[in-house]
């Protein structure tokens, strides 16, 4: 294993992680809800639900963040290498998978592990290991 020291941003990533933790803390302590983004988005598929307003507000916050960031600092670094067919396939898999598995990186990876939920710890290990295997196949076995 070789570490990419040029790409590695330990401090910025730690600070970003702390902000994400504070965000999850706000949502659970004030609203009593888990900041699971796949669950929040999926809930919007039933728009007459009483939870719709706060779900929209949360998603809006996520979408507005880069816009404010540009105004205050600079354009966020976002590099998307994948082509359209792969993006569609991946989107479908992420949509179906996060619903079957009842969570994604935020709901299981951040909030679930913070709750010390064995279920979320298993889910997080599974999606990280499978994600690593997928990248291995794409970059080193096929690529």
């Amino acid at each position, binding site marked *: *294993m070789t*570490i990419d020291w040029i*790409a590695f*941003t*330990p401090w*910025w990533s*730690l600070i*970003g*992680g*702390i*902000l*994400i*933790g504070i965000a*999850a803390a706000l949502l*659970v302590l*004030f609203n*009593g*809800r*888990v*900041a699971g983004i796949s669950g929040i*988005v999926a809930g919007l*598929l039933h728009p007459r639900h009483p939870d719709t307003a706060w779900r929209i507000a*949360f998603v809006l*916050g996520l*979408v507005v963040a*880069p*816009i404010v*960031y540009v105004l205050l600092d600079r*354009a*966020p670094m*976002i*590099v*998307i*290498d994948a082509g359209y067919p792969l993006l569609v396939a*991946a*989107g*479908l*898999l*992420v949509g179906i*998978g*996060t*619903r079957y598995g*009842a969570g*994604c*990186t*935020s709901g*299981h990876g*951040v909030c679930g*592990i*913070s*709750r010390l*939920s*064995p*279920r979320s710890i298993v889910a997080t290990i*599974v999606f*990280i290991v499978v*994600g*690593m295997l997928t990248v*291995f196949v794409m*970059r080193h076995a096929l690529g």
Partner: protein
Amino acid sequence: MNKSLFAFAAGFLFGVGLIVSGMASPRKVLGFLDVAGAWDPSLAMVMVGAIAVGLFAFARAGRRSTSLLGAPMQLPTTRDIDRRLVVGSALFGVGWGLVGFCPGPALVALGAGRVKALVFAVAMLAGMIVFEWIERSRGEGRGTSDAERVVAD
């Protein structure tokens, strides 16, 4: 109204956290998942930071029955480690590894005006709708559908 205000603040901070940490960029996420190549361990630091704060917050939340705004504390109650959890998380892992997007960063990149993020997000919503169709066709005759239950997560 207050609930929406705090939800907006939480979503906004979450988004800023994803940008600052570098996780809004699929290339950086793939750098973490590529353990056989030049490995970028940054995502591990993100989890350390988020969970360090989260541990305190969820410990406090677990001792309360209502939130600070008086809303019921709705923490997941499902405890089963079953096939659904593992297969679902594995499917998500494949999608995540293919392009480097999970739901949060995709929405942030969408806000940054990336057409590719829009395409991913629309496909993701379509995937969620497909899931509900499958659940509904399988769940007919059963009481509460699983689709209703898992939305709580």
